[in-house]
């Protein structure tokens, strides 16, 4: 099993699909010569040429609309939105067009487009370049939303997203690009809508996404040394959500912590908590804990940024609260 970075895993999924299939192409701001602002598409222009690795003007709305139009014509475009903060500019196209066309055409037109984007704090990009906006898109019927946290998952899920006949908003985390992990020799598609259990445990289930998966695994290790056995699950697909995996785990452990980097208030975790309390009510032995960013724009100052977003220690404290140990 080769070891590759998360960044290489994204590139591998894109390049492999483009080699296999002429309908797949990529477009975005500075993705060609520059190789993308995060270096994900480096080298792809040389292999696939400017028709299939398309630089676009700096207009997210135009770029999203173009990708959607191409998808409606039968292509499988993967559009890169440089920062997920800029999804707000493309929201009209994604929310009002891509998500609705299949429904409004009575199923006659499908929109097999992927919007790849990245975000996240940890490197002081300031308030407009580090948000986690997945909750905006999980709320829209007609969109699928993926947020992968490991090289293996990002590659297998991006592949499935490209070949899904519905629009997929595909979140990557800025600080995960350099992390390494083993992946299968050949790409193994990972079905959209299936959670992954990273670690099994008996006392508390931590449901985490993106960077917080890694923070939660650290917290779980620390909790273990304090005698608390922690299960860590990454839903990987936020929409549709693998209710069954989450609920059955919580029925086993009787306690849950939901962790993401996005702002806690009204976040994705709130929906997960609602699903759990409804489907596992009689199994809960403690209130469901949520871990996320404080309700404030992200500060630029590194110390303040660290203060606002959650870390392993926050997850650990939440775990300990559920078992009444702090």
């Amino acid at each position, binding site marked *: 099993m080769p070891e590759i970075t998360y960044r290489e895993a994204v590139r591998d999924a894109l390049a492999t699909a483009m080699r296999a299939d002429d309908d797949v192409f990529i477009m975005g701001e500075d993705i060609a010569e520059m190789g993308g602002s995060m270096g994900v598409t480096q080298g792809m222009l040389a292999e696939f040429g400017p028709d299939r690795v398309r630089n676009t003007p700096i207009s997210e709305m135009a770029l999203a609309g173009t990708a959607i139009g191409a998808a409606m014509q039968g292509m499988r475009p993967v559009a890169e939105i440089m920062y997920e903060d800029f999804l707000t500019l493309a929201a009209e196209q994604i929310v009002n067009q891509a998500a609705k066309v299949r429904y409004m055409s009575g199923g006659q037109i499908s929109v097999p487009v992927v919007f790849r984007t990245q975000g996240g704090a940890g490197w002081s990009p300031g308030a407009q370049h580090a948000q986690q906006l997945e909750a905006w898109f999980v709320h829209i019927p007609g969109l699928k939303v993926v947020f992968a946290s490991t090289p293996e998952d990002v590659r297998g899920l991006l592949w499935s997203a490209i070949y899904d006949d519905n629009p997929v908003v595909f979140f990557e985390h800025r600080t995960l690009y350099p992390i390494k992990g083993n992946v299968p020799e050949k790409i193994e598609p990972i079905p959209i809508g299936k959670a992954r259990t990273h670690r099994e445990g008996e006392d508390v289930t931590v449901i985490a996404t993106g960077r917080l998966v890694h923070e939660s695994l650290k917290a779980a290790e620390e909790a273990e040394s304090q005698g608390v056995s922690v299960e860590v699950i990454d839903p990987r697909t936020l929409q549709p959500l693998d209710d069954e995996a989450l609920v059955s785990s919580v029925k086993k452990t009787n306690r849950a912590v939901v962790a993401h980097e996005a702002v806690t208030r009204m976040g994705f975790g709130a929906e997960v908590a609602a699903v759990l309390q409804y489907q596992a009510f009689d*199994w809960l032995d403690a209130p469901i804990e949520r871990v996320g960013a404080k309700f404030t724009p992200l500060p630029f100052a590194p110390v303040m940024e660290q203060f606002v977003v959650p870390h392993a220690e926050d997850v650990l404290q939440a775990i300990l609260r559920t078992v*009444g140990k702090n």
Partner: protein
Amino acid sequence: MPTEVKLPRLGQGMESGTIVKWLKSEGEAVQKGEALYELDTDKVTQEVEAEATGVLLKIAVAEGEVPVGETIAFIGKEGETVEVTAPAPKAKPKTAAEPEKTKDESKPEPEQPPASSSTNGRIKASPLARRIARERGIALETLRGTGPDGRIVAEDVERGESKPAAAAAPVPSGQVESRPLSNVRKTIARRLTQAWTVPAFQLTVDVDMTRANELVQKQRELNPNVRITVTDVLTKVCAMALMRHPDMNVQYSEDALLVYPSADVGIAVAAPQGLVVPVVKNAERLTIAQIAQVRADLVSRARDNKLRSDDLEGGTFTISNLGMYEVDQFIAVLNPPQASILAVGQTRDLVVPLGGDLKVLPVMTMTITCDHRAVDGATGADFLKTIKAFLQDPGLAL
């Protein structure tokens, strides 16, 4: 002059009621006819309406059992005061914790579980703790919560159930050792006492186990990694027989006979802590080898005291096998709310008259105990006949 609110007699024969909670708090305005508090009688829980309009001046009994006619609160005009003449309820709350408001008036109570998890009559307990308490018939009021803010969590219920009775203080009693009742012992006592109130009948048959023993041997050869026993074959056979006799796969309840769709077969296990009956779910759909695997897992966890509550829930039938203790036959006590239980003795060689000749056959004697409220004698006999036929010719179970 404030109006006294007295506990009403809501039905014939009602001597007392238990105040569950107040729907108005002290100082709140009350309209005549408005729901004032919730009252639990031995029949129902219901809301009781205020009989006067005004301000709820004083709640004299916040919760607990109160005799009919006792003053439980006062309604009057705003600003009026009430002389509290120590309204200590005559009937002491049986299980309910002492209301906090009257606590300071009474002398310190030894061993009374603190009502720390109770606020305004609402007891703080996790949903899981509530479920376990409900299933085991434990009153939350008797428990002390150790969770955040005094919340009762599952562990407190488990602990509460195994807590020795308050009176079990060390008695220097010459020869008699007073062992606190364990959690499991208490459950056994409660459930089997309950079983004793059920009208039951027993039926006994002898079974020629030649073919069943051969089946066990063959199954062992086919599944060298699983330890297959007669109990596994019995479990399968009983499950198939239950499917043929849906009238046996039932539970009696007050207002209906519950007919279960699958055969969830409990197996009585003698664990170090006492008798437990983990359940092999959907046994009719499992192969004998699968049953053996599930059974081995349940038994080993039962011995390690690691069964979860759902391992013990939902059985529709129980098998109790004392063959390994060389018991020839016995009568089992029902495992409520299940409608029947099969007591299985050892298989031993007996001389049996057969076709004018005498033969030595491996014979097993089994006795079924049935809840007569749910099942009649002929139904039970028919079922037992099917089990016997399946054991003597396992192919019939297909």
